[in-house]
């Protein structure tokens, strides 16, 4: 039995969660489409800005700054939530409770406290480190993660920059952060870090390939690299009850989804693919020598990538924000955090793979299957003339 007999506290928790869900859903419905609201606010603000005696350039820049700070705010809050969530999920999987004290209710403020602690911590640069490379590396890891959020469609009309080459842009930019990891590994002047950096480089480069190849079938169907196009393509139902999400495309969708999910986990360097920071082998891998704010940038980047991968999975395979009743951005967040939960679940269940098996797995298993998938999808597209 999954639920043997519910104790009083369990019943209470379930009640609280249900109530929170109701309140949250109601609020979300009251707010409505966030993209629309933001546009309305912007349209309200724009004439005021234009009337002010400042050049037009300045008001445009102000708009960009607002957009960026919204994104940064979202990243910070979601990362804080994810860290707390991961700790709670892992704790409950392991028959314990996790943080319970900070902030009162189930230690909700634990991550905030940790963040403050990290900011206040002493910033150490090892003697043998190459100071500039050491300092630059965390920035180079975090900035690409942040840039990628610009093209992520959080809902209808809720996208910072609607690029024509959205998917490709994300892959290209997120691939840059491996440079930061290698720099961190080399610049720390630590043998463990260097091994971690080298492993990360090999791993990221290898898994990029099946990751990109696995979504080629989608591109064949949709015929566009624009993420909003891909998300819109998946709206609607088959036979009235199966959503036209790409994951429900028979065979092709599932193979592509699994390959994409696995290589996303590998890209974000999380268990079972966390060989770059394998704790039991390499202490902490490339970020062994980092402390304070620089370490927190790595941390932020890791979780930002986790959410980015989940959001991308949602946009590509789960129909983006499409769903009944609730506004699109809520659906997008729900689906994305569902995928994040999958990431956590993987991490707290599986052991770590070995480096050479990891490489074998991508080159000998994922790659051929993604090619097979592309062939099947091409044949289907040709046959159906979609």
């Amino acid at each position: 039995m999954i639920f043997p007999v519910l104790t009083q506290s369990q019943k209470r928790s379930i009640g609280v969660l249900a109530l929170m869900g109701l309140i949250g859903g109601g609020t979300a419905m009251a707010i409505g489409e966030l993209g629309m609201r933001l546009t309305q606010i912007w349209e309200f603000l724009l004439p005021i800005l234009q009337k002010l005696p400042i050049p037009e350039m300045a008001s445009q820049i102000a708009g960009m700054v607002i957009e960026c700070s919204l994104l940064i705010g979202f990243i910070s809050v979601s990362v804080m939530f994810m860290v707390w969530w991961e700790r709670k999920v892992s704790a409950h999987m392991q028959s314990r409770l996790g943080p319970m004290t900070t902030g009162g209710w189930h230690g909700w403020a634990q991550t905030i406290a940790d963040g403050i602690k990290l900011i206040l911590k002493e910033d150490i640069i090892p003697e043998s480190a190459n100071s500039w490379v050491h300092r630059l590396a965390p920035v180079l890891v975090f900035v690409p993660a942040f840039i990628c959020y610009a093209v992520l469609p959080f809902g209808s009309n809720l996208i910072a920059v609607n690029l024509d080459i959205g998917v490709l842009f994300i892959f290209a930019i997120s691939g840059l952060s491996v440079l930061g990891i290698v720099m961190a590994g080399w610049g720390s002047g630590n043998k463990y870090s260097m091994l971690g950096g080298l492993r990360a480089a090999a791993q990221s480069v290898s898994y990029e390939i099946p990751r990109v190849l696995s979504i080629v079938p989608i591109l064949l169907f949709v015929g566009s690299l624009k993420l909003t196009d891909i998300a819109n393509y998946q709206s609607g139902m088959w036979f009235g009850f199966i959503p036209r999400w790409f994951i429900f495309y028979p065979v092709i969708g599932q193979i592509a989804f699994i390959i994409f999910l696995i290589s996303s986990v590998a890209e974000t360097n999380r268990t079972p693919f966390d060989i770059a920071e394998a704790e039991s082998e390499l202490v902490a891998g490339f970020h062994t020598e980092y402390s304070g704010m620089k370490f927190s940038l790595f941390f932020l980047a890791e979780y930002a990538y986790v959410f980015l991968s989940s959001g991308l999975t949602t946009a590509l395979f789960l129909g983006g924000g499409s769903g009944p009743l609730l506004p699109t951005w809520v659906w997008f967040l729900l689906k994305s955090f569902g995928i994040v939960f999958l990431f956590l679940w993987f991490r707290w269940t599986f052991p770590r793979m070995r480096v050479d098996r990891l490489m074998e797995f991508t080159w000998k298993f994922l790659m051929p299957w993604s090619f097979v998938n592309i062939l099947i999808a091409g044949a289907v597209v040709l046959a159906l003339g979609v």
Partner: protein
Amino acid sequence: MATELIRIPGSDFQTEEMILNLGPQHPSTHGVLRVVLKIDGEVITAAQPDVGYLHRGTEKLAENRTYPQMLVISDRWDYLSAMSNNLIWCLAVEKLLQIEVPLRGDYLRVIMVELNRIASHLVFFGTYGIDIGAYTPFLHAFREREKILDLFEEVSGARMTYNYIRIGGVMADLPEDWIGKCRSFLEWIKPRFVEYDILLTENPIFKDRTQNIGIISKEDAISYAITGPNLRGCGISFDLRKDEPYCHYQDFKFDVPTGKQGDCWDRYWVRIQEMKESVKIVEQALDHLPTGVPNAKVPRIIRPPVGESYAQLEAPRGVLGIYCLSAGEDKPYRVHVRAPSFINLTILQKILVGMKLADVVAILGSIDIVLGEVDR
């Protein structure tokens, strides 16, 4: 190990070997062990373990302690299975004193030692999971271990350094209702083994990490004097509980699991099976627990006659032996501890060569050392 770097001429370029210090402060050396590794990329070309960071001079301490006092020190050798250490010291001294322990005392000792074997192997299971990168089995194993420690706490008053098995018997008889609690624990842990098998034993990633890694051949195992689950993992059925029974082990029915080829997975698997066998032994001992007093009559001041004794038993990590020389005083003249972890670790420098860096932790974990016992 020579610390200079050796250049290996490649086909068209040159690479350098690297000296990597694994430990003494490292997450997976299970204490303060240092292994100096010479690596070529990720492949190990030479390895040299360096021990002694936890050396407390047990054998010297023994020469300055009376026999009962030494029992307290024995808790600290292999702190994960202190009951075995207590027992072996008592066996060695009882041999010198020529004391026969009553049957109830022997059964109580068997129950405690076997429960402690489960606890010790649970720690192995959990930490091995962490070595391989799975964190959840660790806390699941510790959850079960806590229950065993609760049982020990009730019976001896301490959770790790029990000092329970005494010369001539045990510290005190079982408290009330202890047998019921022990039985309910045994019922609790049986379904957990199934989960362990799912989480690690049969997990394909785990198998991939451990099978065909760190193979110890039968001949090597014997010539390096490997004992315990490491030896049985090689396929040699050698268990002192069967071969040279002590404490009435001949009364109990249990199997001695053996591996096939002596790789990490076999050593791991043998330990998992041993936990199941220990559960069987404890159940039988509880079923047939004799009545009576557990303690033999022991003189107030223990002063064994001149002589020497060598006692050995099957501890969770292998053959734990005590060589005790008595000069007829109340303190031993010379004590030598044959620590299984220390001798099992000798083979590490041989089997690490040619393996990958990621395998070091898998192999080191599978040998299952306790540094308290290695360094003594």
